[in-house]
């Protein structure tokens, strides 16, 4: 892996976060901690939040409680009616120490937070603290009324969340090469979901600690913990559902109608193409399911198509199998949209929705490149390009070419 060099943006972000964290730690060690009890209470809450983090690649906000507690510490102006005096350096130092402490068990299990997450946490919390603490400690907000002050906190947190979404999208963009726009859209969508709960809880905790003191912390983390639990269960059942669909898709392979791994490969490439063409997360989910189940109609055939190669069949026969597949999918109770995509995969592309176009082109590519031997992938792409007149959508084929050129999604060469 000596040839791999991280993109400059990644290095820049990590270096900034590292410098900021080191500076904060140094300042805090030199000056000592202000209001130790408050710092300890927030530190404990961040640690607990990190301990209950969700692990997994598809999770956008793995530790909502930790994030909310960190943000509210950055926004804390008084505790139980008495003003606090901690500065941004102390906020970052406490949050960083507590986050690292809370992730020790996860690291031990080999599922620690990624460097990106830690860097984002340091930068967002630092941003909020730098924006809020120095003006507050200088008394700039003293003549603001209560409601206006609450709105100020909310606005500051919303701004931070937007910046954080842009940063996360930029990081994902440089890491994966997915187009920036759709990635940013998905990040912003997540801000509306669990992100809004984190923002609201962060603001509310800072206000509540100001009114009732540290007692507010355990009480006010209950709704967020509940939200976290609901999301976790939701994620778990979604994962189970995906597994079931993938297994259902393997039925054609087990029955010998299609070669092993065909559905899985078509789904993986389709998803990459869909991402490249800017589909949203929900559309990508429909696309993935449709790609997994695109051959399921063959189960209704009495005799298998040779090697499962439907792309070489006459158009009418392809369409018949597609309709049979749609009927099977409809029975399974999966989202109606998936059945429509499966049904329409053999239509001429001008009449197809985008997801069906993608499934059709990727399926043909997969079959052709498998038959083609060593030079298969290139020849298959060439054939697809030649056939774009009526069968395969040109923009999908071009996107497929981009995706294949970018990643190592080329098919394993048989024999």
């Amino acid at each position, binding site marked *: 892996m000596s040839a791999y060099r991280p993109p400059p943006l990644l290095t820049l972000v990590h270096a900034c976060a590292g410098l900021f964290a080191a500076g904060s730690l140094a300042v805090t060690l030199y000056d000592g901690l202000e209001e130790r009890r408050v710092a300890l209470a927030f530190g404990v809450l961040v640690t607990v939040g990190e301990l209950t983090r969700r692990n997994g690649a598809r999770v956008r906000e793995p530790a909502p409680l930790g994030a909310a507690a960190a943000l509210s510490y950055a926004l804390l102006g008084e505790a139980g009616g008495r003003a606090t005096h901690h500065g941004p350096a102390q906020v970052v130092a406490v949050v960083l120490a507590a986050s690292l402490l809370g992730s020790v068990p996860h690291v031990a299990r080999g599922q620690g937070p990624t460097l990106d997450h830690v860097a984002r946490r340091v930068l967002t919390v630092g941003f909020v603290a730098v924006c809020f603490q120095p003006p507050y400690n200088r008394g700039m907000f003293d003549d603001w*009324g*209560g*409601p206006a*002050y*609450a*709105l100020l906190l*909310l606005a500051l947190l919303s701004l931070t969340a937007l910046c954080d979404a842009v940063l996360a999208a930029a990081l994902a963009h440089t890491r994966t090469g997915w187009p920036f726009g759709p990635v940013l859209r998905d990040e912003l969508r997540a801000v509306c*979901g*669990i992100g*809004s*709960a984190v*923002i*609201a*809880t962060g*603001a*509310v905790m800072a*206000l*509540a600690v100001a*009114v*009732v*003191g540290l*007692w*507010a912390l355990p*009480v*006010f983390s*209950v*709704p*967020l913990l*509940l*939200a*976290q*639990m*609901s*999301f976790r*269960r*939701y994620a778990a*059942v*979604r*994962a*189970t*559902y995906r*597994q*079931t*669909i*993938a*297994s*259902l898709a*393997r*039925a054609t392979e*087990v*029955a*010998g109608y299609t070669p092993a791994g065909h559905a899985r490969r078509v789904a993986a490439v389709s998803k990459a193409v869909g991402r490249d063409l800017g589909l949203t997360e929900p559309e990508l989910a429909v696309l993935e399911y449709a790609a997994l189940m695109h051959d399921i109609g063959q*189960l209704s055939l*009495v005799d298998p198509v040779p090697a499962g190669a439907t792309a070489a069949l006459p158009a009418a026969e392809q369409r018949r199998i597609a309709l049979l597949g749609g009927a*099977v999918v409809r*029975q*399974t*109770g*999966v*989202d109606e949209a998936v059945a429509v995509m499966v049904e329409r995969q053999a239509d001429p592309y001008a009449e197809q929705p985008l997801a069906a176009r993608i499934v059709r082109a990727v399926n043909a590519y997969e079959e052709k490149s498998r038959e083609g031997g060593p030079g298969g992938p290139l020849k298959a792409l060439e054939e697809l390009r030649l056939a774009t007149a009526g069968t395969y959508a040109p923009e999908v084929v071009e996107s497929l070419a981009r995706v294949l050129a970018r990643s190592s999604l080329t098919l394993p060469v048989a024999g």
Partner: protein
Amino acid sequence: MEAVPARARVYIACVVTAALLCLLPQPGTHTTWWAVVLLAGLYAGCERVARSRFVGISHPAGTFYPVLLAGAFLLPAPAAALVAVPGALLSQVGQRPVALRRVWRAAQLVLGVWAAARTHRLLGGPEAVAAGDVPYALGPAGAAVLAFCLVLALLDGGILAVAERVPVRRAWRGLVARSLAPIAVHGLAGLMMAVLWRSPYGPVAALLVLLPMCVSWWAFAQYHREHAAHQATIRALVQAVDIKDGYTRGHSERVGQASMMIARELGMADERVEVLRFAGILHDVGKLGVPTRLLRKDGPLTPEERRVIELHPEYGHEMVRGIGFLGEARAAVLHHHERLDGSGYPYGLVGRQIPESARVVAVADAFDAMTSTRSYSRARPVAVALAELERCAGSQFDPVMVAALVDAVGRTGWHPAVTADDDETRPPRVPPPGAHLSGRPGAHR
């Protein structure tokens, strides 16, 4: 509630009268009307959003109580009760009679909130809330939540007993226990709203409390939707096998039920019982991979064809091995045709080598094969089938499992949930000459 009985109408009329009495303003109390209007609007809005298509069909956790409870902690009892009225009267009701249900809902909430507010006031809650004295404020708030919960349960149980003639004891059983935990969490959120409302930061800060509640509510509804979809998919998968096979319909479901009975009888934990139900339901899923021609073949199978059919446990395992939540059910799918004496397939495992889940499913499978009508054999009575199982216990089946099934059936009987038994509508088929094979339990294909 198609035609509402007269008794139920009288009961509802009594409750509504009581609710109206609760709404009468108390002399000498000061009510901040803008707060009532704001909270009532908020509650109606939450109720609307919660029932809209954005969230899902109907929410399993009931209504959105934090706003109501915040009202009970902030306002005098009649004003707090008034907060519930517009939201309840405007709420969407799925079943008829719509107007009556709305009125009932409003009256029920008015009484509940009134009781909560009275309790809270009697215990000195409002002062604690105004002072932001949180550990102390938890006490009166907890009592108020309990009162709210009790009143709702009492009224709900009453309407069940009066309108649907459910015995009183059964109507009330579990009502409080089931609703207390969610309402307690809503109460906590309501208390936070009330404390922040009274603080210098005012209602703006109080509204922020609702946001995480709404998000968690949404995720919970999504969870239920996805869960239902998942169940439907598994069911469809199984139906596909049943149809393809040409067995009597519902075989898989019944094997699932019998496996569950055995697992319960053996005193297994609830999660394991559930996994074994799935094991029974999915045991023949590999038949999707066997050519339909062979499964439906009338007449004797050649040894080669038999070998192909005997591949179905391995096919099935290949299909389900990627589904994490099935756990040991996957082993059951692979090994449900093993026999204790080692003459089964696919691996010819002996005795304890066979996973426990597979031994359970093997017994359940053979039992249902004997007690249901097949294309090539009539159904046998349950007693005969059990005797046959006992005869083969030790050589083919695990005696422990057989004894468990015998005990379970002996106690509760065998009432398979019939999903689709349109067997009569199908043309009767000639029993194949190889029908004598089915004389051996479990020797069905």
